[in-house]
């Protein structure tokens, strides 16, 4: 990672909700801010020139659902390696989930993470626990964690299962104007499931987690959000019916938002059969059916689903290279998110570039009450430089995460994040 405060990006198409990228521009960055946007700018003395002909420049992307494992599970990922993966994926900001050890359930852990990420080019926003010790019993010190820099509350990894706790959490967090992000799972209905319950689980003899386990919980949370006036953010939505529930709740004016992981609008449960029980196809929620995948894309296109995320969940090789039913849930996703979005959303003609970027730039920050970076002179330079056409094959050398648990290793990719600029640092991704 090179430290280059002064930079001139040449011949780049600007794209944001205000820019359509119809013509090429040059962007001058000085002391971490956008100093000048114009045509045929001359490089100043100390400026590094980066020719970006053919590429796009947008406000920096944000992934509001990652697991960086620190503190406690540094053998899987650290804040530093997680940020490297984020930068490679084009993300300048992430929000990290609190299922660490200790969990992010007090202000000191929030601040520990903020401090650790301070020198890094990627901004890490901690998500605090809903409950003390993430134990699902009583609410954590939300206000104090907010003062320390937490941007939302979640017990992710586990649901907030107790309905009364969810009511109290929504009431308390609404006082702070903060969302509750719930991992939507009825733990009884989900059984000890290892994949989606459906025809593939029937064929493979694996205990399945039915879609209804997710849907029942979302329905409960929507009703509780309506009842309390709180903001529920449905984490990693994955079934067609769940999307329909959120669609109706939004139409009813209830404060509900949601996100989808890139793998959930790309892969189906058939993958587990095709790859003969590859544990890199095991995550929670599980890969669902083609009908569900189609519903994710439709939900993204019509605005029901607000955010594209990854649920980046690193696990060490020895943890994943085990019997399927013992393998932990989760895959890494930061490095591959953009290519999957390009292939499934852009190249398929389902969404245009601005609409996709809204899910990566604007909506996650709006949900978390963060400022949306802008492409204008005087604004802090928080930028992602990318293309939508470069073909490449995702190999181990591209995994910047400490863990390599990706089902996409060896897969053909299209489109790539070429660089990010944030906090005065310019990170260029080499293939």
């Amino acid at each position: 990672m090179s430290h280059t405060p002064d930079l001139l990006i040449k011949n780049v198409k600007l794209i944001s909700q205000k820019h359509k990228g119809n013509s090429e521009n040059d962007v001058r960055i000085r002391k971490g801010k956008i100093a000048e946007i114009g045509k045929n700018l001359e490089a100043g003395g100390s400026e590094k020139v980066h020719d970006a002909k053919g590429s796009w420049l947008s406000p920096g992307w944000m992934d509001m659902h990652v697991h960086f494992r620190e503190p406690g599970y540094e053998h899987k990922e650290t804040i530093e390696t997680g940020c490297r993966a984020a930068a490679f994926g084009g993300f300048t900001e992430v929000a990290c989930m609190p299922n660490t050890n200790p969990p992010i359930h007090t202000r000191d852990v929030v601040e520990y993470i903020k401090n650790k990420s301070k020198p890094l080019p990627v901004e890490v926003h901690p998500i605090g626990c809903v409950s003390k010790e993430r134990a699902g019993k009583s609410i954590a010190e939300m206000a104090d964690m907010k003062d320390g820099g937490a941007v939302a509350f979640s017990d992710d990894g586990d649901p907030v299962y107790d309905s009364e706790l969810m009511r109290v959490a929504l009431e308390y967090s609404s006082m702070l104007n903060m969302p509750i992000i719930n991992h939507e799972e009825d733990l009884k209905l989900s059984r000890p499931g290892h994949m989606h319950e459906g025809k593939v689980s029937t064929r493979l003899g694996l205990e399945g987690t039915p879609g209804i386990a997710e849907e029942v919980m979302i329905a409960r949370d929507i009703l509780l959000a309506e009842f309390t006036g709180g903001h529920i953010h449905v984490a990693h939505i994955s079934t067609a019916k769940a999307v329909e529930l959120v669609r109706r709740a939004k139409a009813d004016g209830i404060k509900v938002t949601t996100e989808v992981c890139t793998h959930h609008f790309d892969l189906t449960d058939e993958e587990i059969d095709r790859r003969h029980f590859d544990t890199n196809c095991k995550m929670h929620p599980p890969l669902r059916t083609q009908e569900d995948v189609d519903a994710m894309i439709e939900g993204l296109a019509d605005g029901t689903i607000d955010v594209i995320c990854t649920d980046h969940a690193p696990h060490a090789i020895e943890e994943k290279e085990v019997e399927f039913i013992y393998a932990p849930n989760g895959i890494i996703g930061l490095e591959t998110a953009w290519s999957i979005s390009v292939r499934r959303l852009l190249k398929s003609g389902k969404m245009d570039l601005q609409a996709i970027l809204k899910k990566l730039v604007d909506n996650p920050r709006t949900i978390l009450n963060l400022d949306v970076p802008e492409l204008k002179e005087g604004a802090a330079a928080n930028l992602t430089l990318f293309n939508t056409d470069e073909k490449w094959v995702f190999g181990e050398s591209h995994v910047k995460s400490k863990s390599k648990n990706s089902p996409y290793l060896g897969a053909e990719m299209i489109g790539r994040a070429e660089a990010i600029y944030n906090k005065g640092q310019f990170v260029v991704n080499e293939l």
Partner: protein
Amino acid sequence: MKQRKKEQAYEFTHRHLLGLADYSKEDILYVLEQATYFREILDRPVPKVPTLRDKTIVNLFYENSTRTRLSFELAQKRMGADVVNFSAGSSSVKKGETLKDTIRNISSMKIDMVVVRHESPGVPYFLTRVVDAAIINAGDGAHEHPTQALLDIFTMRQVHPELEGKNIAIIGDISHSRVVRSNIMGLKKLGANVTVCGPRTFMPVSIKELGVEVSDNLDETLSWCDIAMALRIQLERQGGGVELFPSIREYHEKFGIKMHHLEAYPDFTVMHPGPINRGVEMESEVADSERSIILNQVTNGVAVRMAVLYLLSGGTRI
């Protein structure tokens, strides 16, 4: 003449037996044909052949098993193989060593074949990725138990040599049975009609996609079928949650095969992969009746496993 020509054209090319999903109709018939030779050998005064004399086989059993393990071991010994048994009461995870390390350590001692039983579906596939040995699936969770299905089909064909168009009923806990999945795979490939019968809570979702009919009416099923195979009901709790049926008593009342069924429907034959819960899946008298071929299944099991071991050890014909 015609048959000979067919034999020349067919070639058995499998390295492993992971499940019947991977075997074609021709493969299945070929294994069964080899098994008939071994079945004859078992009736000889000295039921031994030295065909696996230079082979070393590990029986890797991560789950309790009596008859499958004995059957494999007997098959291996009757063929002169060197046999090592590895039984782990608890899983590798609980022991602290990963399955990958365990199998790699064992295979470093030069092993030709591994027979594996494990509670996790997919473990036999996993082994093919980490060791260089022929892998035989002796049951992986509720996924497959291919040698059991092969011996079931072998036994069925002793009653009905042509299974095409025959009606086979499988009765009991379909969700948690590896036997049923392998049997469905095999029987459908041979052209049989299969109905699974039991309470709805025992039926996996989308079971019909495997090409079977579903019934919750035992009388209708028994009047329809040529062969009725009852599956063992797990008397211990299913999974970790709510019981899937109210009581053993009610199960037996609704789905247990009874003597009056044998009288009412005189054409069907009774099978059971064992071990039987007498008085649950069927009345004791049914299991011991002339209509039952349960013990034939056990004898045939050794012959079928000999055939599988032989073919996967590299032999092509006896």
